[in-house]
Structures are given as structure tokens and as C-alpha cells.
């Protein structure tokens, strides 16, 4: 019998092929199949195969999982996946190393020593003990300090529990939750798209950009899908690295089909290498470059004038005092509009009559001028007003190609070439990556890049980025706010419904059950107050969009106790010390945390330094539904295929903890005690302690699956409390068996066993019978259980032109019903919090907001509010001599990004990945290296105003002189039991030790500075404890015993842990391989 070939070497080979080839060339599936067939064919009858979707990053590549003897022995890409087409990248293949890592936490662990990596000792406890301990600590804090003492966090990679983390604080009556991503990753781009046109945003990584990847797979082409993307701009996005097998592969296929690409990136990514033109922008100067694009497009009249006049608000005349477009009735008091009240008429300058005119939605009697400036009488007072288009044009005016070259370090002819490719295309689209989210310009950049697609009319068209996979609305589109895209619209505070009138919104509130709270509506009033009390919301109101706190404000509150002290922490994923900006400032705050509960599949720096209790979570291959959102129109399943130890799905612990803590707290209330609900003060109990009891009477109640209530009974002067508050923990179930049953039912199976027992029937998109006919055409019919969506039903365009029930084209879900290139919602939000927490009027942002921009640019007009359009803001730590914030001690600028091998903070424990990338590269060009006496692969200390870390010099002349690039990192080997000196492994090479989490923040979202800040470098030495040689990583191999055996003690039954005999230096077989 042939030996298996999944050795270390073949893994590396296969992984490299999958990663690099998927990114840079096409049709790589053959390479993978060749490697895989060597053993798969020979052992097929001994293997069980399941279909799943990889969860190695935030995309979801369909794959096949092979299991033998209850152990996953092989992963491969699914050949029918419409974008990845059989590819699986390094991160995907390495999931075996994650699943069977010696760093797994397989049982509930309680710290049995003092905090700190150097003290780490763990005691295995039962699940009942663990839940009781967590519940007790939470309940104690709430009894003794009130509900605001609890807080949660999530993010950092792996075992995502976003919904649970956002809702568990509310279940305890607390507003505090944060995620290192959020304002620093995706929230700004997601929200700005919602504000500007209530549609999909420009993120590839987050699967908002789908249109570009349709019609790539031959199967889909055969079913009628076409590929229409001819030009694509990747602005700060590197799908080849971040999402290699899916959109990286997709981009490679696109390029092979002739799609031109413009890449804007300080780093020479594989996508930059393959770009038609690459604009190597200086980090954090994207705002200037975007304005230069606008100027060029305006000046050369390259924009789509018809679309701009009809479907954007750029022709609206803006009041210079309020920064808001003038309503027609403000200038023409007698004017009565024809359109429904939910679609207001504004004012434009009419080219036909050469005068100001009311500008009705879809008006045919005017020809609105986009660029106009003149005198307007508003309320009897004459003002010099501009159209929104003129405001944009004036803002862009200084940004000639020459000026952009000077500031952005991109040659003007390269800039012009990029603009022309984009603007002269029949249709194109911009994909906007994460970098701007990690800078002060987090709102300004998406404002500008959305604007570009909108003024070009690249909206809802085949081949455009800004498309929606939903049918045309039959009613006037509305956008509901508060929470994830309105998901929590009327649950966690009330969001104003943009697109409805004030009267309609008021009527909606009035129709709600009568609460007895001052000025509001019972529980909903309290929910709004919780949101308003959330840390950092006064100035950064965009955070309302995702129910998250402002991270630096949380840190400050933990450290100082003001305005309230979050003290019992429930963290739901990842290595916070690797992914939070200025990690040292967080480490210093741990001393103020009473108790830290973690749930994660791994021990990371964060858990080993501070966790008091750890709940073991299943990895993707164990957790059903962990990644069940499929790819494009293919909703591939995500079953848990194996299970080790006592791990559970991520929703299980929070559900159980909330139930257990609620019982304690409700018993406390039932004993006649009161609890302080931070939003209102002392509260009495509302009734029986047992939440399973029926209605407590009073106001209307809505029972949920968790027996929580939406509306609690209440008296006129006393809010009555029952835990869990609100809807309890949302997302998932408290038993894996229920999760599995629901997943099975989703795919048409009566139960999970049946589901798992018939893969072709329930998991394959085209069932068991598909193939190629004699002509090479795909044959097969969609599996009715699978949920496959036909291309004609999935790829839909021109939704805004569809007729709504009011007889008008549907338009967009904004106040004007148009694309609001001039984002009026931001101006209103800054003034009073609109559209969040309606009907509460919130404090305006502080008058200092925008002042630092004004200090740079005297013409800046948005102090004390949010800018509604793109702006350039020179980074506060500028490398440019003479700029505010320049410091000769830190003359270089550094930025960061991902490498192939890892996603967020995951997988640094993977031996094979670490062999390929043992330590973070500090990329720089030869000139920079020479200036500091550095050679390729030298160790180098990188120092910012916050600290010093060490990486290895990687010289390539793709980097601009004076610019560095580095991937975030952490070193789990530093707390390996073999080390002489144990550390948490987060100080050595972690760029987040030197990132900046202090002001100035992005005005809307409070984003801090993870990229584009100033540093200095000097030759360093390899940090003590850091491994780089392949053999050093032996302890991370799945064949090694769990190193925490010593720490945990004899209570841990390691016999239950699979000893996966992964081949190492002497190539052996994959376990159970039938050698």
C-alpha cells in the first residue's frame, strides 16, 4: 500500500501552490488535485467525506473534509465553489494544525495561580462549575456596583461570536462591548455606504463586493452568468493575500479574462505586481489622492452627468450655516411639493431658467446645475450658498496631479493613468480595503471612494462594485438604524427610519406599547439610555451602527473608573494583546479588572496573561454553522464533523452564563433587594425569579426563545427589572444538539444524523449526479435541498429604477431617495445623534471635533461637526518635516497588512505556517536599509512613541524610501514550557505594541491609528524566546502532548485528546492512513 504523502514537505508545497498560484495565476485546481489524489484515491473506501466551508478567514471557501477514525485527515477545496473553484489556501489547509494544536483548550479551565504568563497554572473544572463561577462573578459585580460593571469584547480572529458579544452586555443591562476591529475594521466602510445610499459597501474581504466574481466558474457561465467587470480598482485591498483562495483566486481569474486593475497600496502586494497600474501611495494620504481623482474627473468632465443630476444630491444647494441641503420650502415658503412627504423637494440652480428652483424628486422641468455658487435668501436672510457639487469641487480644487504627487509620493503620470483607466471605462468599481479604517481618515476615505463610484454612475450596473443581490423594492426604500444595519432597530434603542417622515416615525413610536418612563417608552427608553451612556458615544456617534463602545474610552474607564467602571470582562475571541492598538496600555489596565472570562479554542497571550476562567470552544471543524454563509449564490453548509474534549459552539457558554447569572440576580431581586440599572438607577424585581414563568403582567410582553422579555411590566415611577434584560443573548443556541438540528433542517434533512449520513443529498449543490458531457459541458440539476440560487435570480441590477407603489422610481434608502454623495446624515448625526436613539435628542459632538484639521487647513469648514465629504488630513505623526506632529526622532512612516499565512491573530501556533514565516518581516527598500546599516534578514528594532518591537529586515525595492511595512504578530512559543523565561509573547514582535490608540481619532467612528504613524529603526537582536528555525517549532506539532498538562495538573485526562501523528521530520503517514 502506498504511503500517504501529506508530509510536512508536501504540505508546504501544496500550500504554497494553493496560495501563491491562486493569487497570481489561474486554474490552479489541477495542481491541488494532483497532490491530493495520490492518497485520496487509494483510501477512499476508508474515508468519510463531508462538505463544509472553511473558516480560516472571514470569507468562506467551500471545501471537502475527509475524516477517518473520527479524525480529520484532509481538507481540499470544493470543485463546484463558484469563485474559489477547488482552491484552498494556506490558512485553510492549516486548519488541521489549528484543530489539533497542542494549544487547544479542550476543557473548562480555571486559573490556579495569580495572573501573568509567568505564573500560568490551570485547573480543569467541570462545565457546571465553570458556568456557575462565571455567573457568580458577574452577579456579584452587578449586585455590588450595578449593571454597568459588566462588559464584553470580541474580535481578533477565530471563533467569532459577534452577535453574542454585542447582546450579552444588554442582557445584563450594560452598554459596554468592544471589538478591536469594528471602528478599525469595516464599520466605517459599511456605515458610510449605509448613510450614502443604503446599499452594499466596497469591501471585498467582507463579501460586500460580489458582482466582480460572478460568471468566473464554467458551471455558472453554463447557467447563464456573465462576467461584466472590465475595470477594478483595489484601493488598499490585497485579496491575493487576505482572501487568497476566494477573492484572490477571483482576481486572478478576472485578470486572466482581461479585466484591468488599478491598485492603490503603499505595499507591493501580489495584486499590485499584477496591476495594470499601481499607485504606491504614502501611507495615510489617501484622502489627498481621492480628492485629486475627483478634481481630475470634474475638470475633464469624465463623470456621468445624467446620473449625478438625477441620482445624487450634488445639485442640491447647501445652507453654509447648517451644512445641510436647503429644503424647497426654506427658500420658497409657498411651495407645495407633489411627491410624497417622505421624499422632500430641495433647491437647485436650474440651467433652463437660469434661476433657483425647487427640485422635486424625478423633476423633469428643471435641469439642475451640479456646480453653482450664488446668493440665496433663506428665511429673509441672504446667504452665499453653493451646490454640494460645488463644495466638493472647491475642496478638490487644490489637489492637482502635481500637488498629489508631492503629498502622496505617486508620480503624476501614474495617477493620471489610473484615473483614466477607471473613469474612461464603460463601467468599473472600487474595492476599498481596511487601511483607512485604521487611520484618522476612516470616514473620509469611504466617503471619497463611494463618491467616485457614484459620480461615475457605477451603481447597480453589471460589472460595478456597488450592486445589490436583492430585488427592486416595491415601496419607497427606507433605512432603519441602530445596530447592525438596523438589525436591532427597535430592540436596542430605536433607530429613526430614514425615508419616512417625522410624523411617520413618531406614529411608529406611539404605536408601541405604553411604557411609563419619563419622556420615553418603558424598556425602549432604557435601551436608548444604555446606548447614550455607552463610552465614547458623544463624539463618535457612528459607533451606534454596530452597538460598540469606543475602545480608548473603555480603556480609560477601566483605568480611572470614570464615568463608570467596567470590571467583569467576558471576552469571546482572539488574542486581544495582539490585535488591540497600543497593547501595553491594555496590559497595564488588567490590574483593574476583577474577573476575566474567556471563551476561545486556544491559549493565546491574552488568555495566559489575564484570563481567570476559560470556556473551551470548538474550532471550525467541530462547530456546526461556524461558517455557514457559503460563496456567492451557493449556500454551502458548515457541519461540525468531529469533536474533541469538551468543546462547545460559541453561543453555548454565553447563553448558559446569562441564564445562570439571571437566576442569581432574579433571586436577589425576589428577596426584596434592588439592583442598580445604570441607565435609570435602583430597580426592583418584576416578578417571579424563574424566567420560564409566564407573563408578569403590566405592559405588553413579547416572549422570546430565551424567555426574556422585550417590554417589562412597569409602574409610573419604578422600572421593574428582570434578567436577562431585553432579548437576552442573541445568536445561536445553548445546546449544540439544537444548533445541529437547525443546520440539518436548513438543508432539508429531518435530523443531524440523516444530514451527515447522506452528503450528496444534503450537502452537495448539484447532488450526486453531475459531471461533464461529451462536449465538456457541465451536466446536473440543482439540489433542491441545497438552496442554490439561479444566476438570473441572484444577479439583479437597476433596482433604483424599479417603480415603487407611490408611482415613482424606487430610488435609494436615504432622505433624498438619491445617492447622497454629500453625506447629509453625518451632519445631522453630529448635531443630535440622528438617526440613532430616536426620539431622544442627543448632545452635539464637542466643538473641538475637526479643530485639528482646521489647524492644518484654514479653509476647513467642518469644525464642531462631521465632514460630509472626503478630506485630506495629514497624519498626526507625519514623516514630513514642517508638518504638525513631525518629530525628527521618528523620521520613518510604517504601515501594516496581512501576509498569506495568517488571518488576524490566528495560527501563530501552526508549526508549518511558522516554518514559512517564523518572524514578521519589516519590509523596506535598499536605500532605507542602507541609511540604517541594515542587511536583508537582520533583526531590526522598530520604535515608536509607544514602545519598541523587533522584526526581521526584508529588503525589496517595491517599498518607497522612508516607508516600512510590517505584519502584526505574536509569539506563542514565548510561553512554551521549554522556555527558560516565560513571557506572554505579545511584546517581542507585535506591531500593536507600537501602534497609537490615542487622539486624534476619526471623528465619526473614533477609529485610532494602527497604520501610518512615525517610527525609527536600528539594528536589533533576535528576541529571547522567539523561534525561527523549523525544528524549534516541534512543540507546536499536533503530535505533541498538550503543553498545558503540567500547568493543568493531573486532573486533565489527556487520553481524551487525539494524539494526531502528523508527520514531521521523518515523513510518516497521516493518522489512520492505512499504511
Amino acid at each position, binding site marked *: 500500500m502506498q504511503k500517504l504523502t501529506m508530509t510536512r514537505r508536501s504540505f508546504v508545497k501544496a500550500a504554497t501552490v494553493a496560495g501563491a498560484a491562486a493569487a497570481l495565476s489561474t486554474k490552479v485546481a489541477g495542481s491541488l488535485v494532483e497532490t491530493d489524489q495520490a492518497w485520496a484515491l487509494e483510501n477512499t473506501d476508508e474515508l468519510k467525506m463531508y462538505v463544509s466551508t472553511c473558516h480560516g478567514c472571514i470569507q468562506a471557501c467551500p471545501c471537502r473534509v475527509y475524516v477517518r477514525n473520527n479524525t480529520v485527515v484532509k481538507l481540499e477545496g470544493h470543485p463546484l465553489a463558484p469563485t474559489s473553484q477547488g482552491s484552498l489556501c494556506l490558512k485553510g489547509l492549516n486548519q488541521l494544525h489549528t484543530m489539533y494544536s497542542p494549544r487547544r483548550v479542550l476543557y473548562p479551565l*480555571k*486559573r*490556579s*495561580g*495569580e*495572573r*501573568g504568563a*509567568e*505564573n500560568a497554572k490551570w485547573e480543569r473544572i467541570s462545565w457546571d462549575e465553570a458556568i456557575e463561577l462565571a455567573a457568580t*462573578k458577574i452577579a*456579584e459585580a452587578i*449586585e*455590588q*456596583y*450595578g449593571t*454597568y*460593571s459588566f462588559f464584553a469584547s470580541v474580535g481578533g480572529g477565530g471563533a467569532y461570536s459577534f452577535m453574542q458579544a454585542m447582546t450579552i452586555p444588554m442582557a445584563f443591562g450594560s452598554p459596554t462591548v468592544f471589538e478591536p476591529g469594528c471602528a478599525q475594521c469595516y464599520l466605517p466602510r459599511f456605515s458610510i455606504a449605509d448613510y450614502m445610499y443604503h446599499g452594499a459597501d466596497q469591501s471585498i474581504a467582507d463579501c460586500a463586493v460580489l458582482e466582480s466574481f460572478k460568471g468566473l466558474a464554467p458551471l455558472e457561465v453554463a447557467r447563464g452568468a456573465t462576467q461584466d467587470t472590465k475595470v477594478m480598482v483595489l484601493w488598499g485591498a490585497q485579496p491575493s493575500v487576505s482572501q487568497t483562495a476566494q477573492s484572490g483566486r477571483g482576481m486572478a481569474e478576472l485578470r486572466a479574462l482581461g479585466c484591468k486593475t488599478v491598485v492603490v497600496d503603499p505595499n507591493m502586494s501580489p495584486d499590485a505586481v499584477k496591476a495594470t497600474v499601481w499607485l504606491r501611495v504614502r501611507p495615510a494620504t489617501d484622502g489627498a489622492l481621492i480628492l485629486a481623482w475627483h478634481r481630475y474627473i470634474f475638470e475633464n468632465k469624465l463623470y456621468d452627468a445624467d446620473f449625478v443630476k438625477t441620482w445624487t444630491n450634488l445639485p442640491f444647494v447647501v445652507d453654509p450655516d447648517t451644512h445641510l441641503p436647503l429644503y424647497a420650502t426654506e427658500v420658497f415658503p409657498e411651495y407645495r411639493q407633489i411627491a410624497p412627504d417622505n421624499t422632500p423637494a430641495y433647491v437647485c440652480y436650474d440651467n433652463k431658467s437660469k434661476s433657483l428652483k425647487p427640485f422635486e424628486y424625478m423633476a423633469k422641468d428643471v435641469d439642475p446645475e451640479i456646480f453653482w455658487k450664488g446668493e440665496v435668501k433663506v428665511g429673509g436672510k441672504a446667504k452665499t450658498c453653493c451646490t454640494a457639487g460645488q463644495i466638493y469641487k472647491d475642496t478638490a480644487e487644490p489637489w492637482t496631479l502635481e500637488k498629489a504627487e508631492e503629498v502622496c509620493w505617486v508620480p503624476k503620470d501614474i495617477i493620471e493613468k489610473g484615473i483614466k483607466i477607471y473613469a474612461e471605462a464603460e463601467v468599473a468599481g472600487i474595492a476599498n480595503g481596511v487601511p483607512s479604517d485604521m487611520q484618522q481618515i476612516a470616514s473620509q476615505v469611504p466617503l471619497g471612494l463611494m463618491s467616485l463610484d457614484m459620480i461615475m454612475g457605477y451603481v447597480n450596473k453589471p460589472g460595478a462594485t456597488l450592486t445589490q443581490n436583492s430585488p427592486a423594492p416595491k415601496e419607497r426604500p427606507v433605512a432603519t438604524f441602530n445596530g447592525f444595519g438596523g438589525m436591532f432597530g427597535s430592540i436596542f434603542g430605536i433607530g429613526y427610519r430614514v425615508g419616512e417622515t417625522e410624523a411617520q416615525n413618531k406614529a411608529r413610536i406611539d404605536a408601541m406599547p405604553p411604557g411609563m418612563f419619563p419622556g420615553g417608552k418603558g424598556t425602549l427608553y432604557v435601551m436608548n439610555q444604555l446606548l*447614550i*451612556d455607552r*463610552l*465614547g*458615544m*458623544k*463624539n463618535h456617534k457612528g459607533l451606534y451602527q454596530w452597538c460598540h463602545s469606543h475602545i480608548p*474610552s473603555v480603556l480609560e474607564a477601566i483605568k480611572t*473608573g*470614570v*464615568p*463608570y*467602571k467596567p*470590571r467583569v470582562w467576558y471576552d469571546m475571541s482572539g488574542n486581544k494583546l495582539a490585535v488591540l492598538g497600543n497593547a501595553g496600555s491594555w496590559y497595564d489596565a*488588567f*490590574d*483593574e*479588572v*476583577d*474577573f476575566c472570562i474567556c471563551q476561545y479554542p486556544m491559549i493565546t497571550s491574552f488568555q495566559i496573561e489575564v484570563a*481567570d476562567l476559560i470556556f473551551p470552544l470548538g474550532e471550525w471543524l467541530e462547530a456546526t454553522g461556524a461558517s455557514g454563509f457559503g460563496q456567492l449564490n451557493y449556500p454551502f453548509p458548515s457541519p461540525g464533523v468531529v469533536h474533541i474534549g469538551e468543546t462547545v459552539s460559541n453561543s453555548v457558554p454565553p447563553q448558559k452564563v446569562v441564564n445562570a447569572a439571571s437566576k442569581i440576580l432574579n433571586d436577589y431581586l425576589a428577596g426584596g*433587594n*434592588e*439592583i*442598580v440599572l*445604570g441607565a435609570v*438607577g*435602583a*430597580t426592583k424585581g418584576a416578578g417571579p425569579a424563574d424566567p420560564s414563568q409566564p407573563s408578569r403582567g403590566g405592559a405588553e410582553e413579547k416572549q422570546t426563545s430565551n424567555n426574556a422579555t422585550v417590554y417589562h411590566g412597569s409602574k409610573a415611577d419604578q422600572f421593574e427589572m428582570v434578567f436577562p434584560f431585553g432579548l437576552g443573548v442573541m445568536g445561536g443556541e445553548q445546546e449544540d444538539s439544537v444548533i445541529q438540528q437547525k443546520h440539518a433542517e436548513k438543508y432539508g434533512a429531518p435530523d443531524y444524523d440523516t444530514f451527515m449520513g447522506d452528503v450528496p443529498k444534503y450537502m452537495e449543490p448539484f447532488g450526486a449526479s453531475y459531471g461533464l458531457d461529451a462536449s465538456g459541458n457541465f451536466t446536473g440539476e440543482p439540489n433542491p435541498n441545497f438552496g442554490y440560487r439561479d444566476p438570473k435570480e441572484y444577479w439583479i441590477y437597476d433596482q433604483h429604477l424599479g417603480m415603487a407603489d407611490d408611482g415613482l422610481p424606487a430610488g435609494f434608502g436615504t432622505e433624498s431617495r438619491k445617492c447622497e454623495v454629500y453625506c447629509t446624515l453625518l451632519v445631522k448625526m453630529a448635531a443630535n445623534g440622528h438617526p440613532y436613539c430616536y426620539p431622544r435628542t442627543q448632545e452635539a459632538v*464637542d*466643538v*473641538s471635533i475637526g479643530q485639528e484639521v482646521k489647524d492644518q487647513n484654514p479653509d476647513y469648514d467642518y469644525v464642531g461637526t462631521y465632514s460630509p465629504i472626503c478630506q485630506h488630513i495629514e497624519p498626526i505623526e507625519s514623516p514630513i518635516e514642517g508638518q504638525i506632529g513631525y518629530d525628527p526622532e521618528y523620521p520613518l512612516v510604517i504601515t501594516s497588512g496581512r501576509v498569506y499565512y495568517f488571518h488576524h491573530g490566528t495560527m501563530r501556533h501552526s508549526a508549518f505556517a511558522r516554518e514559512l514565516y517564523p518572524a514578521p518581516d519589516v519590509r523596506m527598500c535598499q536605500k532605507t536599509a542602507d541609511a540604517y546599516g541594515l542587511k536583508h534578514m537582520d533583526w531590526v528594532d522598530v520604535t515608536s512613541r509607544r514602545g519598541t518591537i523587533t522584526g526581521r529586515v526584508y529588503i525589496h525595492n517595491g517599498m518607497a524610501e522612508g516607508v516600512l511595512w510590517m505584519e502584526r504578530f505574536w509569539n506563542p512559543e514565548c510561553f512554551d514550557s521549554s522556555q527558560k523565561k516565560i513571557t506572554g509573547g505579545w511584546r517581542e514582535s507585535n506591531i500593536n505594541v507600537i501602534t497609537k490608540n490615542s487622539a486624534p481619532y476619526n471623528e465619526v467612528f473614533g477609529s485610532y491609528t494602527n497604520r501610518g504613524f512615525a517610527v525609527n529603526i536600528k539594528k536589533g537582536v533576535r528576541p529571547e524566546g522567539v523561534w525561527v528555525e523549523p525544528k524549534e517549532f516541534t512543540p507546536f506539532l499536533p503530535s505533541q502532548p498538550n503543553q498545558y498538562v503540567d500547568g493543568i495538573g493531573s486532573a486533565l485526562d489527556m487520553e481524551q485528546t487525539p494524539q494526531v501523528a502528523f508527520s514531521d521530520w521523518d515523513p510518516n503517514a497521516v493518522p489512520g492512513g492505512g499504511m
Partner: protein
Amino acid sequence: MLSNEKQTVDVGGGLAELEQDFNANAQDGETGQADLETTALCFEENLELSSELNLEPNSELSFEERLKHLSSSAKRNPLHREINYKTLKFCAERRILPEVEDFIAGCPEFKKASQSPYFLLLFLLKGGGIDTFELDEAGAVIEPAQKEGLTEDEIDDLIAQFAYQTNEVGLAFVEQMNPKNRLLEMLDIEPAYYETYTEVLEFLTEKRSMAEIDTLLRGREALMANRKPDDRPIQPSVFVDKLEKAGGIFWESGWIITPEGRELLATLEKSK
């Protein structure tokens, strides 16, 4: 932000004067400290212990560095902070292990602790604030010379008990953590809330729930004052947190003032 000058006006005298009064009161009460004799372990024993406990020998560190190390270690978990302080204070006199464990278990703060008494003691030892001694049947300290020539079993037989005594570093920490110092520092830093702090202390001369404290304070103008442009009004729980952290109050089925808190109130009353 108000200055210290404002604070001295509020309390009717200088802080230094206030502190003198406080010290005078303290000497009459529980917070007085005994004159202690400390016996350090010999270096070899220290090494042996370090090996067992994964301790870093700290003999090369300066006194200030050792104090900093202890302070960092003893304050690492807020749930253990007061217990650590009290244990070090309790062990100013040499105590045998059962005594120390009983003392720790008897602290009201221990109900919230996440570790056993022995572990808490162990980490004070690791933090360098306390020394350990081997005692014979008679309760005398076993000297290294007594072990010479003995087998391991014979040494085990010789040791009847362990004792613990706070060393000079630990005593310095005890002084640093003395609630009188912490309370005065708190009032010094936050003179704007002086009246509120004292009112809460007064209120907690009887045991109260957090809800009662909240009801006392909620709606006060003082809470509405924004401390910084981006801050929300502060929650009443802030005063509980600060007073607890300063050693002025503690939780035992309700919030109640500590003896040191009472002394502060008495001092403040006198100074009026």
C-alpha cells in the same frame, strides 16, 4: 479641574495638617504598627524556595525595585488587593500557616476571591513581601546548620510547621497601602468630590446596598458635571469604586465603612 488649593478651603485646613490629625488618631487605634523584627531566609534557602516556586532571586534588586515588584504582584487582581494588604499587615508578626489561612479566609473580601488562601499567600511570597520559616516541634526556627548531615526524610521529620512573616519590603507596601494614605490621596486628587465622598462615608456607617447609595446620589448636579468634553455624566457607582479602592469601605452583604474610613470621618469632623 479644581486645584488642591480649593480642597484645602473645603476642608478648612491644609492636607498636611489633616494627615497629622489622622496619624494621631491612627496611633490610638488599629492602624498602629508593632515594632517588628524580621528574620530573612538565608540565600541558599531562598534559592531553594525560588526553585520550588519558580521564583526569581531578587537579592540583586534594590529595595525600591523589590517594592515595585511586590506592589505590581499584590495589586494584580483587584479582588485580592485588600486581602494581600491585610495579610501582609497581619503577618507583621510571625504567623504559622493555619493562622494565616484562617485569617485570609476570614477577610470579608475573601468571599469574592478567585484563589485559595494558600495560593494567595504563595503569591505574596513570590512577590517578595513575605518570608517563610521552617519550624520544629517546639516552634523554633530551623537553622541550616541543623539540617547538615540529615537525610531528606530526616529533614522532613524535623520540620513540624511553616511560619510566615512580612519582611521590610512587605512592611513598606503595608505602609504604602494604608487606607489612611489612600483616602487622603483620593481626596487630594479629587477635591471637587470631597463633599460627596464624605457624605457617602457617613451614609455607610450603616450597611447599605448599592441601590441605596445610588438613590442617595443619582440626579446630583455633581454627577452631571462632565469631567472631559467627551465624558458622560458619572455614575454613582464611581464613588463606591473609589472609596473601596482607597480602603474606606468594603462589601459584606452590603457596603459598609472600614475602621480607617471611620477614623477619617472623625478626623474630618475634628478639623471643622
